[in-house]
């Protein structure tokens, strides 16, 4: 029995230089990353937003000092950043807690394959982070504080988590892993785009005293369409929703319908989008949704017949949207429904007949049975 202990002791003596120890205080915890590539010169600017732990913990003095600090570096190749950061950053780069990566539109248009390759190589960088394209310059976004959630990374992450609840797997398919998965697919993926409401970044902590958030804040504007890792176009939010709905990712969204001259808001829930392939007549998409009335402004008594009318209106509205998406796909030559991935040949997918059968059933109507209204004399 004594022998293994002696062996063990000399092993421990051997590795007194414990290689992988890194103290918590020597870590620069990166929470938000941003990358921009200048199309002409090809120099890459990387922004790292690092958390300042003492600034965050209320216990310590003041608490007014900044929650995050942003560093940015310029390099001509991605790999050199880990070394370049030692020139300015006093601490060691620590990437596992990064919540989102923001890429400028011009970099997206050149194709982000090199970023994806570099990112996936090291296990320290995790690939289930949110992938975002920004229209406004990266420096304004990365250098500004955010209200309510003092760390911008978590601010963006909680925003995407909220929208994520409307999607099948609980997460919106806007993460780096969905991006990588779609590189070889012909069906495009849509990543969210953001804009900064003012051209001046809110980079001082006084910002936290201002009440009006909209003056300087990050806003989700829509979707950027990526095919084979290159941005080819942009969607607004409604088309993005329809795109995810028809591809079976979406489960709930809110639709407004006009009936008898008034507006009704409906929440469509547990949406099922099945694809039925008939050999002869192409693809029929059967979509079914349960409706819940959120806002009813009609000035007639709610009745069963009225509910059916609402369902009809919803089906018609959804049919229109689906057809417009189909037209957009064919016009822009983007295989939005992923037909080629499901076996349709390259040449034939644009003329491939697609028909929609949309059905819905109004299930819940909320607290009041019918709306308040004045009988028109």
């Amino acid at each position, binding site marked *: *029995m*004594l022998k*293994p202990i002696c062996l063990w002791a000399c092993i*421990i003596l051997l*590795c*007194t230089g*414990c290689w*992988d*120890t*890194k*103290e*918590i*205080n020597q*870590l620069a*915890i990166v*929470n938000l990353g941003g990358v921009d590539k200048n199309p002409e010169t090809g120099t890459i600017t990387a922004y790292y937003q690092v*958390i300042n*732990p*003492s600034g*965050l*913990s209320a*216990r*310590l003095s003041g608490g007014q000092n900044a929650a995050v600090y942003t560093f940015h570096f310029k390099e001509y190749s991605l790999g050199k950043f880990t070394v370049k950061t030692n020139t300015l950053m006093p601490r060691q780069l*620590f990437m*596992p*807690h990064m*919540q989102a990566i923001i890429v400028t539109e011009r970099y997206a248009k050149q194709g982000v394959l090199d970023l994806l390759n570099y990112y996936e190589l090291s296990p*320290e960088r995790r690939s289930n982070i949110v992938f975002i394209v920004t229209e406004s310059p990266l420096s304004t976004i990365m250098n500004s504080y955010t209200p309510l959630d003092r760390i911008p990374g*978590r601010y963006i992450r909680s925003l995407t988590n909220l929208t994520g609840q409307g999607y099948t797997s609980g997460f919106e398919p806007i993460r780096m892993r969905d991006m990588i998965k779609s590189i070889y697919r012909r069906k495009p993926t849509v990543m969210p785009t953001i804009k900064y409401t003012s051209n001046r970044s809110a980079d001082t902590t006084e910002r936290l005293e201002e009440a009006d958030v909209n003056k300087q804040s990050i806003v989700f504007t829509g979707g950027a369409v990526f095919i084979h890792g290159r941005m080819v176009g942009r969607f607004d939010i409604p088309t993005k929703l329809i795109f995810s709905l028809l591809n079976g990712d979406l489960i709930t969204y809110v639709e407004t319908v006009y009936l008898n001259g008034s507006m009704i808001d409906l929440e469509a829930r547990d949406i099922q989008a099945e694809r039925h392939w008939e050999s002869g007549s192409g693809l029929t998409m059967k979509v079914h949704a349960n409706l819940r009335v959120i806002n009813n402004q009609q000035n007639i008594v709610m009745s069963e017949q009225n509910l059916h009318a609402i369902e009809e209106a919803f089906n018609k509205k959804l049919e229109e949207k689906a057809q417009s998406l189909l037209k957009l796909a064919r016009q822009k030559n983007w295989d939005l429904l992923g037909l080629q991935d499901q076996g349709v040949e390259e040449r034939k997918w644009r003329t491939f007949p697609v028909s929609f059968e949309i059905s819905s059933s109004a299930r819940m109507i909320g607290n009041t049975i019918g709306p308040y209204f004045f009988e028109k004399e």
Partner: protein
Amino acid sequence: MSGFDPVEPIVSEIKAVLGHSPDFICRKVVIQGLSHVYCMYLTTITDSSVIDELIVKPIKETSLQDNQSFKDSVSLLRASIPVPEKKQIASKDDPVKNILEGNCVIWDPSSQTLLVYCTAKNDYRSITEPSSEAVIRGPREGFLEDIESNVGLIRKRLKSSNLIFEEFSIGSATKTTIYMTYLANVADDAIVKEFRSRISAVQTDSILESAYMEEWIQDKTFSPFPQVLSTERPDAVAAKLIEGQVAVLTQGTPMVLVGPLTFFQMFSSPEDYYQRADIATLLRWLRMFSFLLAIFTPALYVAIVSFHQELLPTPLLINLAAQREEVPFPAIVEALIMIITFEILREAGLRMPRIAGQAISIVGALVIGQAAVEAGLVSAAMVIVVSLTAISNFISPLYSFGIAQRIIQFAFMLLSGVMGLFGLMCGVFFLLVHLVSIRSFGVKYMTPLAPVIVSDWKDTLVRIPHNWMKRPTGSLRTKKGRR
């Protein structure tokens, strides 16, 4: 010391051996009429009142005339002395041993015989509650230093004819009497034989406490884990005997050794059998969980803080980073400081009077911990980790098991400080192999889990209600439950 008659060789010999000690008395008692006898004993370990009243006086009063029926003086002596005669011995060296054991030896020159009367003075303390194994519900009786009363305590609980006591006398100097006891119809013969051979194979000069015996009869000397259970509670010993285990009582110590001990028996305190079944099961799981807690918390803390920070969720990581802002030492050094201070406090707590002891050690740790945090030597999380391990260490019903936990906790912490999670897991595998390779009297140490005996799970991992328990544990291959 009255003048002795040179004719008596035996008396002179005894005197030669014991004469020097001040408490040796050799009285020459004249029986009415013609003959006389010698009565020898040691005053310090005999009950002088018994000797005067019940031995010397009757000898004096009996006169040879009124009971002529006796042929010689020996039968006369036997008839007259009311104290139960221990035995009649002839050989020369026995008298010294008997005198040393506290008996009174009577030498009758006329019939050349030696009579031994048991007059030992037993002024032992009364039966009190065992302080180390206090229970909320259950008998308050604990064993005593006197082996006879211990046997009595066991016999009161196990009134079965199969309860066998085998006597051994071990230790050339101390000659301590050792009783090995088991239930003949339940205990497995192989285990009993193993016990018997090991006890009789002990050659040492002194056995002062059952711990000596424990080291002699255990299988593996270099293992921190106890292989024999030492307890002060007669009800626990009785319960184990019924299960088919063997107990070893030692003269002069209340701690009784019960074997073979397996790993999972250390999680069950005797109190489990007096609580209701579900409470007892939950308590047992709590003890198992606290065992894991005691071993892994400091090691995991050190491994995660200094090697794998990505395992922490972000808010916790920020919090820890803020706390450790001004702590100068790396995590492993900080952990070592705190653990060692706590061990010192605990040891000090033990030496102090019993009541103050436990409280002092815990309060001390927290107070010192808090001061250290203020002074910025240690991070607050570290104080929590250390006190958590300390508290979960106290919970183990067996003190020797608690010490084993502390040794492992220390080893794991060093490993995780050097190699992180990888080193820790290597340590866990090493511990598992070590645990599994231990045999306690032929019974595998991790019995109901390692060689999977599902029928035993009902009494180790879970305590099922008494009315469901038909057969005793299968792992001890007991006769009744023999498969």
